[in-house]
């Protein structure tokens, strides 16, 4: 049995065109760079400043670049359910992280490698779930890099974790910029009312 229209494919394509503009890659890249600088200079202010910059770039970029090029859309209930699942994953991971941070190490005292392995698994799980619900495949790779870097931070006490964070952040940032440039080229800004070139040639 054939179906003339694949609605799931259409919805997914619509989501990806609206969502995959490079700004999430830039956001994650900046977060990882922030972590790297934080460890390198042992100053939390780096992470806070870069985190705010990442959030600003994401919000302002989507408002000034994405929406004027792709238009406005409110996705349907199925997509909203997925978005709520993403938020739930984020909230649960934050809660678990908070709870775990209050468990004194003198009570548990596992080896550093075990703690590193648990951190790696936990971060991979979070990134994996978010990637799945957001249909954002690159997030699996970013999650892997983030998890490896965090595990190394716990297991090692040298420059290697910092380098991993900085390189991973740089790579994600670069990918984000490339995706963004491609997005801007693919969707040139058009004033409302002006027809675009091309499209389906049809007679209504």
């Amino acid at each position, binding site marked *: 049995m054939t179906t003339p229209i694949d609605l799931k494919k259409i919805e997914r394509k*619509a989501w990806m065109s609206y969502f995959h503009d490079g700004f999430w890659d830039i956001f994650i890249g900046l977060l990882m760079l922030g972590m790297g600088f934080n460890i390198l200079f042992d100053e939390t202010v780096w992470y806070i400043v870069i985190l705010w910059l990442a959030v600003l770039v994401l919000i302002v970029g989507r408002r000034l670049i994405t929406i004027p090029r792709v238009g406005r859309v*409110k996705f349907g209930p199925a997509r909203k359910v997925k978005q709520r699942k993403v938020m739930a994953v984020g909230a649960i991971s934050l809660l678990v992280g908070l709870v775990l941070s209050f468990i004194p190490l003198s009570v548990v005292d596992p080896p550093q490698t075990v703690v590193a392995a648990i951190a790696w698994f936990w971060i991979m799980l979070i990134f994996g779930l978010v990637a799945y619900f957001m249909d954002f495949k690159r997030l699996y790779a970013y999650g892997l890099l983030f998890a490896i870097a965090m595990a190394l931070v716990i297991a090692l006490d040298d420059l290697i974790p910092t380098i991993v964070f900085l390189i991973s952040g740089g790579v994600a940032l670069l990918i984000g910029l490339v995706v963004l440039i491609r997005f801007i080229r693919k969707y040139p800004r058009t004033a409302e009312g002006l027809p675009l070139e091309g499209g389906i040639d049809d007679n209504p």
Partner: protein
Amino acid sequence: MTTREAGGEGVKPIGNIDRLIHEPARLMILAHLYVVESADFLFLMRQTGLTWGNLSSHMSKLEAAGYVNIEKGFKGKKPHTMLRITDEGRAALREYQQSMRQVLDELPDR
């Protein structure tokens, strides 16, 4: 001569196809509106690849048939139009898909 007049039982499913939806551009428009809650003209233009004029023209036909709602409003001071498929539009698209499945399933083997 319509398809209903031309044939008997075998062409009834073809005769039931909604011609308003069957037009490729309008089918694409309705399919895109079906999977979202609402969208503006620019979004639909990007997704369907239609020109502004084409999209406008098809939207007028779909609105006249009661398949879509065109909601005019403002974003700040700028006029802004959001498009939404109606319940009738959703039902019509589902029926269209059903009819097409029937037509394609009943194609004879060579």
